[in-house]
């Protein structure tokens, strides 16, 4: 994940989130304030995270238990987190929540400290989310919640079932779907599917490989209607009939329009894992580990999942959700999602500009 645009929390993927994101985009790196110092009986804890990424009830419960009121500052893009931690203004945070793709960059610049595994119960977490290639051995990160890249579509409009990314691009060129397609703004999620079709790995792709997708993708761009954030209303009204989305956003659309279908296309697709990490400059380690253990406890993980619409990382979570949860499978990426076919994008300074250049070219070509 390189842009939060493509994966806002399900409860407010609509206009409200765009407001917040744009606000941050405009105010940008400059305004994302300094850590606010929280002073309380139990000490202080400074968290730098995505907006509205913890349930307020759970935060209140933590304060009641520990006497610490966490001071939460927010960012809207991993790039901003990176720029901030990489500058003197980034000192003083005790917990940050980078996405999987940025952990090696942050750790490589010594901006994160190795976790003390004796202070965290990793055994309770879902093993399929641990020891993944973006952070072997979970040296720096603990999974917080996760999502997959998939496609939500109207089978009547696209004239059939979508199983692979090739099907996605073929369907998009058909008259029923052309001009009614939503792509994400994340360069990796635009270029990635084109690389996977030709059997390439998005983390090993060379600049030439990435540039090689440009003609194909700019050719497809004329069918694209929007790169804006996912809007379930647009799928309900038929303004969009084929859209890249994460499972939580797609679930919102499926709840409104049961005719829609969801698929995580093959041969490969993305899993991103937003993860807790502790910056090197953290001052309040006791409070940080205490907070993490509280939020990794089973009942809080269930509450956080129901609040965010994204699955938390605890093992056996599905069985713990309340019985009246609608489309529970969709929270976990849909039935039959194959974790072995999911890969996490890892930001590489050598290729990041090439990805972005293709994305810009595609968005420009879509504008005619």
């Amino acid at each position, binding site marked *: 994940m390189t842009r939060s645009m493509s994966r806002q929390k399900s409860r407010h993927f609509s206009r409200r989130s765009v407001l917040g994101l744009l606000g941050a985009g405009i105010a940008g790196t400059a305004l994302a304030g300094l850590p606010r110092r929280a002073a309380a009986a139990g000490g202080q804890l400074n968290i730098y995270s995505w907006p509205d990424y913890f349930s307020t009830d759970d935060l209140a419960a933590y304060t009641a238990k520990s006497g610490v009121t966490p001071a939460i500052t927010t960012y809207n893009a991993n790039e901003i987190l*990176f720029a901030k931690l990489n500058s003197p203004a980034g000192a003083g945070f005790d917990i940050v929540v980078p996405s999987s793709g940025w952990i090696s960059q942050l750790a490589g610049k010594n901006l994160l400290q190795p976790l003390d595994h004796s202070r965290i119960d990793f055994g309770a977490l879902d093993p399929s989310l641990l020891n993944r290639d973006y952070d072997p051995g979970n040296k720096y990160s603990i999974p917080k919640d996760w999502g997959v890249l998939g496609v939500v579509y109207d089978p009547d409009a696209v004239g059939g079932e979508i199983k692979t990314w090739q099907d996605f691009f073929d369907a998009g060129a058909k008259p029923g779907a052309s001009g009614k397609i939503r792509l994400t703004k994340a360069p990796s999620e635009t270029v990635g599917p084109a690389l996977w079709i030709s059997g390439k790995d998005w983390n090993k792709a060379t600049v030439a490989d990435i540039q090689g997708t440009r003609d194909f993708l700019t050719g497809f761009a004329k069918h694209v209607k929007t790169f804006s954030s996912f809007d379930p209303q647009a799928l309900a009204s038929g303004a969009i009939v084929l859209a890249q989305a994460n499972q939580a956003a797609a679930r919102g659309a499926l709840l409104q329009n049961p005719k829609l279908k969801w698929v995580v296309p093959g041969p490969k697709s993305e899993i991103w894992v937003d993860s807790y990490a502790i910056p090197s400059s953290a001052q309040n380690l006791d409070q940080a580990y205490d907070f993490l253990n509280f939020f990794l406890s089973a009942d809080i993980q269930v509450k956080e999942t129901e609040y965010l619409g994204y699955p938390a990382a605890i093992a056996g979570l599905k069985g713990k959700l309340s019985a009246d949860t609608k489309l529970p499978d969709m929270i976990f990426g849909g039935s039959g999602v194959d974790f072995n076919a999911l890969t996490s994008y890892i930001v590489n300074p050598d290729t990041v500009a090439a990805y972005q250049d293709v994305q*810009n070219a595609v968005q420009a070509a879509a*504008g005619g």
Partner: protein
Amino acid sequence: MRGVTPTARTSAHQRIAVPTSDALLAGIPAAWLFVFFVAPLAFTVFFSFGHSTFGGIAPGFTFDNYRAALSGFYAQSFLRTLRFAFAGSALCLLAAFPTAYFIARHAGRWRAAALALVLVPYFTSFLIRVMSWQILLARGSAVEMLLNFLCLHSGPLDVLDTQTAVFIGIVYAYLPIAIVPLYVVLARIPPTLVEASRDLGASPWQTFLFLMLPLARPGVATAALLTAVPMLGELVVPTLLGGDKGVLIGRAISSQYIESQNYALGSAMAVLVMIAVGVVVALLARLTRGFMEVAP
């Protein structure tokens, strides 16, 4: 200014008292400008000649960033942005002129109220105003129903995420700042001049073309300036109403700074935009010179 300085100098009493308070008064905004405008600008210029490291800058002196910013994709984005600002500003003026004319010359005692109505939406958040158009232009909206009812359109309305929606949003967002300067110049044109023109046999069209328009020139230039300059950096309206298609230079700069972490190229592009804005301002400033000449 020329009129003020000699008066200040004539009084010896003032000469002693003034410098400290003057210096202080001038010093506050100067310091503010230096810290929040000149210094960041200097950094931007400095960065634009450097070498980008991922999320950082290695100081240096190279024109490579400018070469990249002026070639291929970015040059096209730049031209696209110029066309966009020109078209948007022209549309704004077309819509603003008749409105300002009506308020200035026909609104009578409702003038103040009419001006207030124009300006009130401008005090609302820019984002809120633009986002409201998402609701109005989406499928199944009230506008769609109204257009269908009036037989001006049939079927679903698919305007959102198109260039048309972007220009609707742009004109709407910038209209108030185009109306105000036009209103000011049009209100200042003495009715006697119009009467004289009619007496001398000019048709209403000739009066407009050879009297009103030349006298309104400074207002036209000011309105063009106030709309075109911000449009050169416009980022919000194309994102919210245009589906983020057709990358404008503001978006391209932000993608260099944020996504690509290439501060050097982003800075070079920003410097080029500032130069372009400087040229536009200088050209239009020549036209606004006559603003003071219009008799009250």
